[in-house]
Every structure is written in structure tokens, then in C-alpha cells.
């Protein structure tokens, strides 16, 4: 494995559900290398999304530690925690999560505005990434005018335009037909190899498991094979 980028130690997450407590993650120890193309597999409800939410800094662990590039992110104060996520991690969701009132170009530009990237640099990056993922012809279209595959390409462009170190994708092909899903996976694999961006992808897709550098399985809140 390349140098470690994300290291989790005894990661636990409990959710209250009514009067009971659900132990979604029960002590996960994983090391993810820089530039790795990692598949997180496991049955529904096993804790995959919880794990992605924690290492993606969308949520806080109940106990345990996450080191990101040597920094203990769990100890960061809320503002620094969110800034860290904004600057270094990007997400691709199963349901795309594009802003409905904005067209493809505007959706891709949005995270750059949040990062306060200058206008000229925004333009340069959007030109490059839209060429890369093959959506130059659809930039004027809004999400409801695009097919599922086109929407996911826009979502990938939006994720990559910020030049993140890590892209976290939660079931990115679940809402796509198998041919389109395969195309999207091929594209993510190519981007991983060309840009050396770390991809962490939760999926049941056998095609992805075949292509991944490594597959970890989460079952009942624990890593079964690391």
C-alpha cells in the first residue's frame, strides 16, 4: 500500500433509536493509502454509509480516532472540522444531489464559490473537468433535463473540480442502468489512475469489486476482511 492517508482506530458510532441504542459501527480499524481505489462492500444496514460519513467528516464518531494525513481530525473544533472537509474531501451520492434550479455548469461552479476560488481560476477548472468527464455539450441543461448517467457525470465533475485528495462515493451506480454504471465506474477508475485522487466507494457492484485495488467488507458494524 502507498503511504497511509486515512487511518481509523476503534471507530464506533451509536445512534439512539427510540429507547434503544443502535451500534452502527462497533470498532473499525482501517488504513487507506493515498491514491488508493478502495471498495467498501457489505449488506444493506451493515454500516457502510456510517463509515463513509465518519471518514468523510460528515458526522462525528461516538468514540475512536480518525487520522487524516497524520492529523487527528476528531479533535478539530467545528469550524476547522468543516473547513478541513471542504478543502480536502468531495462526495458523490447515489441520488446525485444536484441543485435543481442550477444548470450543469452552475452546479459544478458552486463548490468553488464556497471555497472562494477566484473567477478566472473557476473558469479554468470547470473547462478542464467538464472536458475530462465528457459533459461539455450538456452544461446548459438542468438536472431534470439530463439522464441518470449524465447527472452522475455532473456530480463527478462537481466532486473533482475542487481538486480533493479524497472522493467518497456512496453507491454511485445504484440508480443507473448497468451499462451506464459501468461507464461511470470506468471513468472513476481512470480519474483515480490519472489524477492519483483517492477514491473510496461503497458499492454492491461486482464490477467495481473486480477493479478496486482493495475491497473491505463491513458486516454488523465490523470490518470482516481488511
Amino acid at each position: 500500500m502507498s503511504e497511509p492517508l486515512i487511518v481509523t482506530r476503534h471507530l464506533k458510532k451509536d445512534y439512539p433509536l427510540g429507547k434503544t441504542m443502535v451500534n452502527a459501527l462497533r470498532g473499525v480499524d482501517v488504513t487507506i493509502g493515498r491514491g488508493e481505489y478502495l471498495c467498501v462492500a457489505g449488506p444493506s444496514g451493515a454500516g457502510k454509509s456510517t463509515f463513509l460519513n465518519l471518514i468523510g467528516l460528515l458526522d462525528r464518531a461516538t468514540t475512536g480516532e480518525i487520522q487524516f494525513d497524520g492529523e487527528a481530525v476528531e479533535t478539530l473544533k467545528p469550524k476547522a472540522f468543516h473547513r478541513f472537509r471542504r478543502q480536502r474531501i468531495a462526495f458523490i451520492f447515489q441520488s446525485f444531489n444536484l441543485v435543481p434550479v442550477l444548470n450543469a455548469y452552475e452546479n459544478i461552479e458552486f463548490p468553488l464559490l464556497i471555497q472562494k476560488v477566484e473567477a478566472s481560476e473557476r473558469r479554468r477548472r470547470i473547462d478542464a473537468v467538464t472536458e475530462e468527464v465528457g459533459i461539455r455539450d450538456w452544461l446548459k441543461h438542468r438536472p431534470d433535463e439530463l439522464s441518470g448517467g449524465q447527472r452522475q457525470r455532473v456530480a463527478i465533475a462537481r466532486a473533482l473540480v475542487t481538486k480533493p485528495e479524497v472522493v467518497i462515493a456512496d453507491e454511485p451506480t445504484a440508480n443507473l442502468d448497468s451499462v451506464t454504471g459501468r461507464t461511470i465506474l470506468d471513468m472513476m477508475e481512470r480519474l483515480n489512475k490519472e489524477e492519483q485522487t483517492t477514491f473510496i466507494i461503497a458499492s454492491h457492484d461486482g464490477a467495481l469489486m473486480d477493479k478496486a485495488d482493495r475491497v473491505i467488507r463491513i458486516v454488523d458494524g465490523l470490518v470482516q476482511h481488511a
Partner: protein
Amino acid sequence: MKFLFVTLLSVLFAVATWAQDDPLGIIKAMEKKMYPNAKTEMLLVHITSQGEREEYKLVSYTKTNNQKIIVRFTAPARMVGSDLIMLDRNVWAFDPASGREVKIPTNLSFGGTGFSYGDVLRLNFSDNYVPVLQASDAKTWTLELTAKERDAPYYRIVLVIDRGFNPQKGTCYTRAGDLVKTMDYTEPKDQGAGTKPATITVKSPLDEKEVSSLTIVKETRKDYPDNVFNKRNLSARLEEKL
């Protein structure tokens, strides 16, 4: 007595000169002329670097020198219903599919054209920028405007305004000092609310073949009540019943 008269005259002259060269006063006078309380029909044309022409037709309803504005699209068909409202510096776009308003940033590029949403909504300068007089001559003032907030469409604008309070040219820069856009105000016409430049043409050094323009087609002065300018009215369309 003669001394007192001369002194009084000098003071009056100095005050008049100062008032005339007051940068904020100049900007406000320009905005009063450019953005009256009115219904304005506009045409936005975008020529892409491949030479393709895109057109957007829009109608704006404005109040208080553009502190409040609603913009409704009448063409192309895919944009109809996706209307915008700006209240102070906050912009919302209406999503007809969900019937909800979504807040968007003013510095977002409008559809990838040369204009930002702030430009389309004609975000006013006086509330969003701090003006400083850079130069003046018998015909024009040159003002340097610096954004009060980082989310303004441009960090710094050098704006030339003629002595009739018509903007002539704007040059827009990033915080790093890069030139991002030039805005030329041309075709002075009376479209119903006084003679002023009817067209803003935007060019960018980032893509020299790309040109965007926004033209006032018709302007009708009208004072709309405050209840027109709220988010719920994006779907209610009260102004059409007035």
C-alpha cells in the same frame, strides 16, 4: 462685507464641488437613473466561443434602486417559471418542479454566460461596494469600487461614469488583481424611463470569442408595493394583477 461675501461664495463653491465629487453620491445618482422603480423587459444574448447564439428574455420588477428585484424568464421555454428574487444581497431561484425557492450566490455564473446572477439581477453597486474617486475630468468620473463582502460578483471594479450619471465602462478584477471582465455600456436610448445606456456588453479575457450582452427592450415606470417582493410571490405573481 465684500470679504464676507467672497468667503461665503468660496465655502459654497467648495461644498458644491465636494458634493459633486462624492463617490457614493455619484454611484447613487447613477443607480437612481439606471434602476428606477419599474417593469423592465430585457434580452440577454450570449455568443459562445463556438459562435452559437443563446437568447434569454426576461422581465424585471424593481424597487428602491434595485435593492428589491424580481426577474421572470419568458424565454427560452425551459427557463419559464425558474424565476429569481433578490432582497438586499440575498438571491433565491424558484424551482417549479418542487415549488420551492433555493438560495443561490450572486457571484455564480449565470448559465456559464459572461454574466453572474448578480449582473442579471443588476446587483446595485452602492450597497455592495465601497467607492473611491480615482480620477475625474470635464466629462467623466473614474471610480474604484471594492467589494464589501467576498461573495460579491467581483472583488474590484473600475467604473467610468459620465457627468450625466450614465455608466460608460466597467473593468472587473479578482482579489488577486486578474482582469476577469469588461463591461461596456452603450446605445443610449429612452426606452420609457429616461435616456440612458440600453445595452451592457460583457467580454472576458478568459475567452475572447465569447460575448454576452444584456439589453433593455422596454421600461415602464411603476411603483410596486412591498408585498410583491417576497419569496412566496415567485409563484403567486401578484405584480401581474396590479
